[in-house]
């Protein structure tokens, strides 16, 4: 707080996105991170990670949920310059990067057909990832609480809950 204009003076912002280090220039040019840019904008436009969606782009629907140091955040209302040094996990970082194998939550969504139009899906999965990282024994109530900020217009949430509880079971088995 004391360092007024800290973000303006700083020339770079460093993000660790899905394990990869990105040093991004801060400035006013179109290829630079501007101080007004949200993390969602930087992920989607600068890093071309369009799996993170911005259905409302105003912190209302949860579609842009990513993990920052393991905590689910709304990337559409987080400024990129606030994220210096942070570890960001997006939907693209969930599958096993070497084998390409889907994360158990992703696999459960496929198996349960817990996918319709697909726009809320990445945010939904990221919220569940954050939940299961903390509580692999989560109940239906906790699952519903965790995705209560992720709005979906297609499914009625039934299959999400089924898939999530199934994924939690798999994660517990893998973890055990």
């Amino acid at each position, binding site marked *: 707080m004391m360092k007024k204009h800290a973000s303006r003076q700083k020339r770079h912002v460093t993000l660790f996105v899905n394990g990869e280090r990105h040093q991004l220039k801060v400035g006013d040019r179109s290829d630079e991170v501007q101080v007004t840019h949200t993390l969602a904008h930087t992920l989607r436009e600068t890093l*071309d990670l369009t799996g993170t969606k911005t*259905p409302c782009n105003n912190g209302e629907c949860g579609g842009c949920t990513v993990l920052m140091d393991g905590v689910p955040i709304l990337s559409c209302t987080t400024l990129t310059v606030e994220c210096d040094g942070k570890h960001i996990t997006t939907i693209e970082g969930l599958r096993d990067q070497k084998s390409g194998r889907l994360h158990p939550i992703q696999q459960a969504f496929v198996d349960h057909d817990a996918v319709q139009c697909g726009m809320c899906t990445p945010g939904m999965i990221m919220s569940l990832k954050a939940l299961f990282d903390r509580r692999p024994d989560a109940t*239906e109530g906790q699952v519903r609480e965790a995705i209560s900020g992720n709005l979906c*217009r297609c499914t009625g949430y039934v299959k999400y809950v089924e898939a999530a509880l199934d994924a939690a079971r798999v994660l517990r088995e893998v973890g055990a």
Partner: protein
Amino acid sequence: MAQDLKVVGASVPRLDAVAKVTGDARFTVDVKVPGMLHARFLRSPHPFAVVKSISTRKLESLSWVKAVITHLEMKGTVVRGSPIDDKVRYLGEPVVGVAAETEERALEALSLIEVEYEKLPFVRNAEEALRPDAPRLWPDGNLCEWPGKPGGPDKKTVQWTKGDLAQGFAEADVIIESEFATHTQFHVALEPHACVAAWDPAEGQMTFWVSTQHIYWDQQSLAKFLKLPLEKVKVICSYCGGAFGGKLSTLKEYHMVAALSVRARRPVKFVPTREEESVTTALRPPASFYYRIGGKKDGTLTAIDLYCVRDGGPLTANQPKFTLGCTDYVVSYFTCDHVHYEGKSAYTNQSPTAAFRGFGYFEAGTGLEQAVDMFVEKIGMDPVDFYLKNVPRRGALLGADQGVCTTGGIREVIRACADRIGWKEKWHKPGENNLPDGRKHGIAIGFAMGRATMPPIQFAGNTVVKINTDGKVHVFAGVSDMGQGQATGLVQIAAEALGVRFEDVTITWGDTVAPNTAYQGASATTMMSGNATLLACEDAKQKLFKNAAPMLNAPVESLKIENGEIYVADDPKRRITIEAVVSRPGKKVIIGEGNWSMPLAQNQPRAPVVCFVEVAVDTETGKIEVLRLIQGTDCGKIISRERLEGQLQGVLSGGLGFMLLEDWAIDTERMRILNGNMLDYKIFTSLDSTNEAMEPCVIVEDDDPIGPFGARGIGEACLAGAGPAILNAVYNAIGVRFHNTPISVDKVLAALKSGGSR
């Protein structure tokens, strides 16, 4: 009809599931093209005004403004069924489009544009529109034209009479009159109406990515606007992030973005903000209904009279279909000899309107079934017995077209749902059951029936199937897949028809490179594109057999196909792989063609949904809790149980949400919608239901005689059974009838306080 099916009905993963769970799926909002500009729009601040002049002079010196298009330049262009003239007719109508290097720059430019308006007195709703002294939205008046059938002599009324209404009411022991009014609903598709136009000056070709339900309408509209042959406008929608009927119009913005791309000779992208999406693209319009029904003491309906007026918004678009949906669809719910309906749709200075999982039968049917509920209460009949007695059977002649109903399993669905919920034990007189926690218990049945085909004038399916030299099958079907899993279903149908594995079939969808096909609406794609695919496969199969016959030394008629091989029926050892046939010397790729449509006056496959609910109403807080909800359907042969369940479970969001929670807020002084976002406009969250309350769906597979492998579409009606079910269940709980929507907590409380109906 016992069928030995291997792929249709099997549990196969949806084709785009992995792309969607990994973030690999590129929706329109994700499309990027090198050199892409961004468009923003200056919008009308008035609901109705003459645009006297537009000056964009100040933009001329700005290097970062690459192209401009104004409303006045578009005069004569027909958009959403209405011609552009010098007037703007809704608040937020785009007046000037600007393409600039960035969105911020485009927004900046808007503030430099000068527009002179002459404000006009405006029309707030349908009631105002129909007053004799109302301002006229169009020279011909405020009633939307309906030149089609069934129609009245004024060419503006949907109208039909069967039998003799007076006789029907004379035969009745009990006559019920009832009114019902419904509010506006936002679609809240998670992907907004985004588009990217990429004009290629060298080829003279437009490539247009758009989040849509109808790539071919967009193609036709844009080709006409740009004066190009259809083939020079390529429309692509690989993934559509939700639509629900709201993406059935080629927006004025799409035309303007295309023009901006041509002018700038660069690609241009437009993504509406959430507020623009909510209030300027499309919404479910308000409507009001009047019903008069008569029946005998034994539950026989003798007369149905239905009158409806819709607030159609300022553009013609789909208004006539709405009116038809509110009337003709709904009177077909029940068998009755004497029927009359009349429907009108009025132009108003509200936002443009669109379908919303149905052209209005959700609302109209809800009101009708309230009248039915009053009727059965008066004659002392069990509501389930009434439905069992009156819903149509296979072979019944339906609606004005008097087409033959091909749906046969509705009664079986009703019985199974009633058993599941324990109707016999649980149904009680209104207000007579208190739960142990003091809340009032209510239970009811709801029913809705959509169509699974549309008239050939609107609906024809075209599919091309290619069997390539590796023996693999490719389907070209230009459907949009907005989450219903249509593309996967067509692959299942093709695999089944050609006797190959699911994995051996690929598909091109959402791309106008495939032959022209009607839009994805009205639950009609399964029937339309499913049958077209089936016919294309049949054509391909015959061509394969023709080529295989000399190789197997057997006549064409003796050949059959299974497991990727063609064999001689009475000597199955003589067989040859499909690959061997298409890869032989002088090889020839096999192309099969399929075209399908069905006049409504012939057969009418109908998509029924039965919904039973149990509710608890807290009389202290007014809160309505859905304790149990059972969705049932007879969709003919199931193509995919998972996808079908997904559609039926969608009732929790758009269906129950509309009746209980969602409401718009509008400042009618200015026609400004105040809650065009996802925070102040409340849709169901995951906390508004439980998986325990949402019972497994009851599904009856009574094969449709004209559907592909007996299947028929169902998507639309999935919301609609919940309307009457929830309203009648609340009545059953507290004895209060609500005649307008939504039945929000405050209305319930007020009604309980006053002890009367609302």
